[in-house]
C-alpha cells in the first residue's frame, strides 16, 4: 500500500531553521500536512490533541529531550504505534543504542541530505 501523503506529520526541533529545512524537504517528497513543535513537551501536547502518522524529532532540546519524548510516546497506549524517526547530531554509539532500546524506528545523523531522509521514510513507512 502506498504511503498516505496527506497524513499529519509532526516535526520537533528547537532550531527553527532546522524545522524549516525538514518541512521543505518533506514538501518536496509530497507531505504537505506538517506540524511543528520546538521541544518534546510541546510535541507530546500536540500528539495528545491530534493523531500523527509520523514523528521526526531532534534529541537535544529543553525542557524535554527527543529521547524522553520517544519514551513517553512508547508508554502511552494511544500513541505507542506512532512511527518515530530521530534526526540528531548525537552520533555516539551509546545514543543510537539508547534510542533503539527506547523504540525508535530509524535514526538520521545531522548533517543529513534529502536522499537519506527519503530512504529512511521509505524504510519506516513503505514506498512512495
Amino acid at each position: 500500500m502506498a504511503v498516505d501523503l496527506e497524513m499529519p506529520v509532526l516535526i520537533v526541533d528547537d532550531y527553527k531553521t532546522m524545522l524549516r529545512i525538514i518541512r521543505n524537504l518533506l514538501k518536496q517528497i509530497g507531505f504537505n500536512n506538517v506540524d511543528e513543535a520546538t521541544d518534546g513537551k510541546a510535541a507530546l501536547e500536540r500528539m495528545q490533541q491530534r493523531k500523527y502518522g509520523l514523528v521526526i524529532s531532534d534529541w537535544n532540546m529543553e525542557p524535554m529531550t527527543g529521547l524522553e519524548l520517544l519514551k513517553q510516546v512508547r508508554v502511552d497506549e494511544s500513541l505507542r504505534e506512532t512511527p518515530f524517526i530521530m534526526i540528531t547530531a548525537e552520533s555516539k554509539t551509546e545514543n543510537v543504542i539508547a534510542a533503539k532500546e527506547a523504540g525508535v524506528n530509524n535514526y538520521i545523523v545531522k548533517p543529513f541530505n534529502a536522499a537519506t531522509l527519503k530512504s529512511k521514510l521509505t524504510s519506516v513507512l513503505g514506498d512512495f
Partner: protein
Amino acid sequence: MMHSVTPELREWLDNLKADGERQLSAAELAEIIESVVSTLHGSLVQPAENGGQSASADTAESESLSADATVAEALTALSEFDKNGPAFVNLSEEIDNIRTVTQDAANSILAVTEDIENFAVEDDGAMQAAVFDVTNAIFEACNFQDITGQRLTRVEEMLRHIELSVTRAMAVLGDADAIERSKELSDVVEQEDSRKEEHILHGPQDAGIANSQEEIDKILASFD
C-alpha cells in the same frame, strides 16, 4: 645580586662600618635583619620595579607572597581583559550575536530558496525536477546553522567552566565578589553537567570520531 636599601639603613650601616670596634646588641642585629628582609620582600613582590631581578636568598614566605600576587594579577587581567565590561559576560554576548546572525542568514537563504521552489511548482516537467535538485542542495547546506549553533553552545559551556576556575581561584585569594560569583557559576555548571549525563548529550562529534550514517545503520541493523 644588588638590592637597593633604604637611605636610613644605608646611613646606619655606614656608621657601623666607621665604628668598627663596637659590638652590636641583639636588638640592633634583629632590627638590621628585619630591615634587610623587608627590602628583599619589596623587590620580590614588585620585580618589574627592580628591573626583573629576584632575590636569591628568598624566604619561603616571600616566595609564596610573590606567587599569590602574580596569580591574583593574572586572574584579574583574565577576567577583565575586555575594557567594555566583564569579559566572560561579553564573550557570551558575542557568541549569542554570532548565533543570531547565522540564524538570520540561514533563514534569508531558506526564504529565497522557497520562493524559487514556488516558481517551479507550476512546472510539472524536467524544469521542476532540476530546480528541486538545486533547492535540495541549498536546504542540505543550511544544516550548518544547527550544527554551528550546537557547537557554539558547547563553547559557551566551556567558557563557563573556565570562568568558574578563574573565579574560584580569585575567591581563594580573597576577592569577595568572586566568592559570590563562583557559587552562582558552580550551580549552573553542575546543572549543565548533570543534564548532559542524564540525557546522554554529547553534541556534534568531530569527523573521524562521529559514527557516520552508514555505521549508525549497521548498529540499528544489529538489533534485527
